[in-house]
């Protein structure tokens, strides 16, 4: 009996250890996944308004897709006292096909902050350069309410997709 008991106990304790191990494995890594951060590149207008400067930020891995990065860009940019993005701007969707990203914004996108071509160029360079950091995005077009956007304040030609604007990339803030 006692021999049997001890064998049973041994089996039980081994089972408990195994279960405990399984439970640990099930819980702990999940928490790590949720916390995992990756680095992404944003382009934000510099103080002299001479261009957009590269800034590397950490973002939840689950948001490290074009839409998540774009909304992070907006969140960072509007912190600036002289933000070029329209107030209340929100990216609703980004679809990528054949190197072309179709970005759907809310209606705020149609209202320029200052109306000048500089504001317009910096806004577009900030968005397009950030999105073209994704290897599968080469060009960007904009959509609001299902319609393509062909103007912000009437300077930049938006009838064709806009590709990366390297000319406006500056060294630092």
């Amino acid at each position, binding site marked *: 009996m006692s021999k049997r008991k001890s064998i049973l106990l041994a089996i039980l304790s081994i089972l408990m250890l195994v279960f405990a191990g399984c439970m640990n494995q099930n819980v702990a890594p999940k928490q790590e996944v949720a916390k995992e951060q*990756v680095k*992404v*590149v944003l382009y934000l207008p510099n103080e*002299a*308004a*001479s261009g957009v400067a590269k800034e590397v930020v950490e973002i939840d*891995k*689950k948001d*490290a*897709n*074009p839409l998540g990065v774009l909304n992070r860009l907006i969140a960072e940019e509007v912190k600036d*006292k*002289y*933000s*070029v993005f329209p107030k209340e701007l929100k990216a609703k*969707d*980004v*679809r*990528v*096909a*054949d*190197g*072309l990203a*179709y970005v759907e914004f809310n209606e705020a996108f149609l209202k320029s*902050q*200052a*109306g*000048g*071509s*500089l*504001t317009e*160029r910096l806004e577009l360079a900030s968005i397009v350069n950030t999105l*073209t*950091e*994704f*290897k*599968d*995005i*080469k060009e960007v*077009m904009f*959509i609001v309410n*299902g*319609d*393509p956007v*062909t*103007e912000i*304040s*009437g*300077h*930049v*030609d938006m*009838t*064709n*997709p*806009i590709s990366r604007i390297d*000319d406006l990339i500056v060294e630092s803030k």
Partner: protein
Amino acid sequence: MRTIWKMVCMVAVFIMMPVAILMAANASEVTDVRWVTRNDAPISYVRIVLDLTKRVEADAMITRDGLSTKLVLKNTKMKDAPKRMSLDRNIVKSAVLAENGNDLYITLQTPSAIEPEDIKVFQLKKDDSIKKPVRLVIDVMQKNVKPRDHYFGMEKNAVDSKHLDKNKVKYKSRGNVDIKKLLKDKGISLDKRKKVKIGDEEIIYLSDFKTSGGIKGKVIAIDPGHGGTDVGAPSQNGVYEKELTLPIALELEKKLKKAGAKVYLTRHDDRDVYGPRSSAVDELQARSDVGNDNEADIFISIHINSFTNPKIGGISSYFFPKTPYDKKLAAKIGAKIANKDGFGGDRGVNEAGFYVLKHTTMPATLVEIGFISNPKEEKLLLKKKVQEEFAELMCEGIIEYFKGA
């Protein structure tokens, strides 16, 4: 065509007939034509190579439907070359080579509409080391295909979104959005009047414009930015951009006319050029058309900048490099106006994809004269004297440009 005809007349008058006959006798000959489909690029392309006995002058245009491309090789004859070739049915269906007077016409048929950026034409020098004669190369890119992820010479540092988010790279789909179709449905046409790039630093234009010989007789289009229901950028004091661009443009018109130029303005008063509350595309195309329809030699668009930070100021000029002269025009005018006293300084001669710069067929520049959002610059720009001074400086820059140096 004006320039070409004038040049032809000049040759006839000054260099006389014997030379012209000699030139015809000295035509370049096409001795062979080869082609291949190249797959070593993100997008496949067909390369057509013509062997020539000497360098040629070439001209190229794409029909409005984009399905047919015509190259004209000036003073060129056929020798031992096929007249008609079937090529890659996915990229270029056929090529037809036909003599037309002294010139050789090459007509390419493509299965899909192509844009000027899909075709590249350039000449290669004679290379005795590899026993190659002068060659004319025509590259046509395949349309409607996804660029390859891996190919020779690809970017290395780009972020791969698939790598970043392996589990979920989902783009919510509510059906595919066809932008070009949407634009078409909205009545917005994609402009086909663009130039095809001819490599080797030779660029061929579909329209003619003069770039030298002095300002006298030159045709100049001036576009006072915004107007009518499109007020442009507002200042903190309630002044609109459209009110400042017009007086500068009117002054510039006066000065250019005095210098002997023929001047067209997109507007002479406070109005929309296309129509009240029209779309920017209609409005900006109507302005571009004033230059295009009058076969202007240059196009000048006058704007006042604006920014969220009122301290930002300065003067900049912009160009889109559709011809080798756009940058030169922007630089000549920019050099005169950029350091005007009292303004925030030179913000440079910059490349920009502004609509009127891309959709005009002649060299064009857009100048941003100061910032209406900067109270100091706004105050200066409201002064008649300052407006006149800017017009004078721009006129000087334009005179410099037409010196052709």
